[in-house]
């Protein structure tokens, strides 16, 4: 910036246009720059603190037993959270099976088939509202609809509650990705006499795939970390799941339950379960970034 000012100062009788480092404006500049650097660095501290704690506290207890055994009760030593890992994966799987097809189909309607219709406008707006919804309300909703009706807490109910949370995220991300598909590609396909379905299947979906996948993976990562909606839909269980229609353990609920316990063993397990959960979530995040990046390299 200073070069620009200097080079445009040919006349001498004007006030000095050179940067004066004792000027109050310059002081303000330096002060605020330091402030904003400080803010950026301070904001990064929590992430590093969380991750280092997870590695130190969680890494200390991570072994084959912790990953495979069932949770210990009370004063018992040892134990693990194998059933919770399975439970989380199963419920996220159920949620994905429900929300991904629905979300992508809804996104097709919003992005391609009828973007400006009333249904699309309202649905897009409500999807945005739904992303800001407290996740616990999804749990309460599913408790009312499924748990009360079937009379039991179940992996199904947990999966559906997660699906309610994933649906708007998947829809909005997929819509955004589909909008990036150049109009002329669609025009070319329509010009060849394709039906709208053919355009979608052969042009829009293949071209938008990296973007759609990024959105989907991020939604899956978010669902894996959720706990509030599982609290009274899947509840918890101390055993490996035998069927889908019974209370099911999950990593996040295990962390919640164990964090408040007065036993060191449980607290250690809560840390290692957190480590597993965060590694899972971060892996998904990195995967999403890699998939999303390949879009620009092509």
């Amino acid at each position, binding site marked *: 910036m200073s070069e620009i000012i200097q080079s445009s100062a040919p006349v001498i009788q004007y006030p000095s246009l050179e940067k004066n480092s004792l000027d109050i404006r310059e002081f303000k*500049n330096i002060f605020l720059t330091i402030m904003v650097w400080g803010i950026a660095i301070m904001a990064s501290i929590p992430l590093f603190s969380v991750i280092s704690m997870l590695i130190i506290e969680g890494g200390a207890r991570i072994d084959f037993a912790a990953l495979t055994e069932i949770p210990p009760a009370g004063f018992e030593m040892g134990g693990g959270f194998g059933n919770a890992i399975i439970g989380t994966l199963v419920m996220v799987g159920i949620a994905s099976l429900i929300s991904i097809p629905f979300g992508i189909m*809804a996104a097709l309607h*919003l992005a391609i088939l009828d973007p400006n219709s009333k249904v699309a406008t309202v649905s897009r707006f*409500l999807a945005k509202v739904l992303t800001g919804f*407290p996740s616990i309300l999804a749990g309460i909703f599913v408790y009312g609809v499924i748990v009360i009706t079937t009379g039991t807490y179940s992996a199904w109910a947990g999966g559906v509650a997660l699906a309610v949370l994933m649906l708007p995220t998947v829809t909005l991300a997929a819509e955004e990705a589909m909008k990036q598909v150049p109009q002329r590609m669609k025009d070319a396909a329509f010009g060849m006499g394709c039906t709208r379905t053919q355009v979608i299947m052969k042009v829009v979906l293949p071209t938008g795939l990296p973007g759609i996948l990024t959105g989907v993976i991020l939604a899956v990562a978010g669902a894996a970390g959720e706990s509030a909606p599982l*609290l009274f839909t899947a509840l918890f269980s101390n055993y490996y799941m035998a069927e889908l229609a019974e209370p099911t353990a999950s990593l996040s609920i295990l962390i919640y339950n164990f964090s408040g316990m007065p036993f060191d063993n449980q607290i250690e397990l809560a840390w290692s379960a957190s480590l597993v*959960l965060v590694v899972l979530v971060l892996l998904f995040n990195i995967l999403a970034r890699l998939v999303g990046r390949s879009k620009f390299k092509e």
Partner: protein
Amino acid sequence: MVHDPFKQASSARTLSAPPSANDYMKDIVFRAFAYFCASAIILLVVYIVFEIGSEALPAIKTHGLGFITGTTWDANKGEFGVLPEIWGTLYSALIALVIGGVFGVGIAIFLTQSFVHAKLELVFRTTIELLAAIPSVVYGLWGIYVLIPLLRPGALWLHETFDWVPLFSTELSGPGLAPAALVLAIMILPTVAAISVDAFKRIPYRVKEAAYGMGATKWEVILKVMLPTASSGILAGLVLGFGRALGETMALAMLIGNVNNISFSLFSPANTLASLLASTFPEAGDIEVQALMYAALVLLVITFIVNVAGLAIQQYTMRKFEGKK
């Protein structure tokens, strides 16, 4: 025989064949299904509101509006009131918004106003984005075993030195508002930062050039030109961040102490609507569940209003800038 590309092309089976009747059928079914899925989102929201509303109906009939102004939650006496929870929800979200807002906007300025090299910028951007990826329970666990012990000496000193200030009027004896609000601030920071970054990037480059051309310093440009221009977008980010903070459950349930208490003190335990639901629901009897459904409805209404307001501001901003192109 002479090679004839036209003949070859006309006999090849390519996409240029007209869609068959089968294709048209598939098209109709496919589009109908897409239409159904888009409307399913609308139905889902309506169903959620209807379901929670109808579950809450008995409690609404019994307690009426007194539920919102009542201050006791006692399942044995059948007395239910959520004023302390509403207070705790709004107060904790507000503190989180002040902290998260300053940091979020600061980071947005840092990332968009060319303070760092593009590569380092990417590092910071990724760090902030990953903050949003850490699950809420993990923040709760971190809060219990790292943040609370870290805050206690400072909180004790503040309480002893400034105990006449309402903010510091009680001791931090473990869980409380301050650690909860701090974790909340960390959790909404990425939302505020992402939307503010968007708002800054939307400003045409020539606006900044014009300000520099008049001899403004870097920070004069940021504070007097960029910030006001991006203000509506930043406001949208703040409101949506506030909405996030209102509904956050697990970290708060683990850190806030779950005590029905209306106090200005940062160090006293409190309660929020969402953490009331999380901590009370699993052991609640029928009557209490109805009351909890009523509490859920209150939470639903509050977050709905805040989110719609945030989205409305966001859409207004987008329209403003798209119109000016």
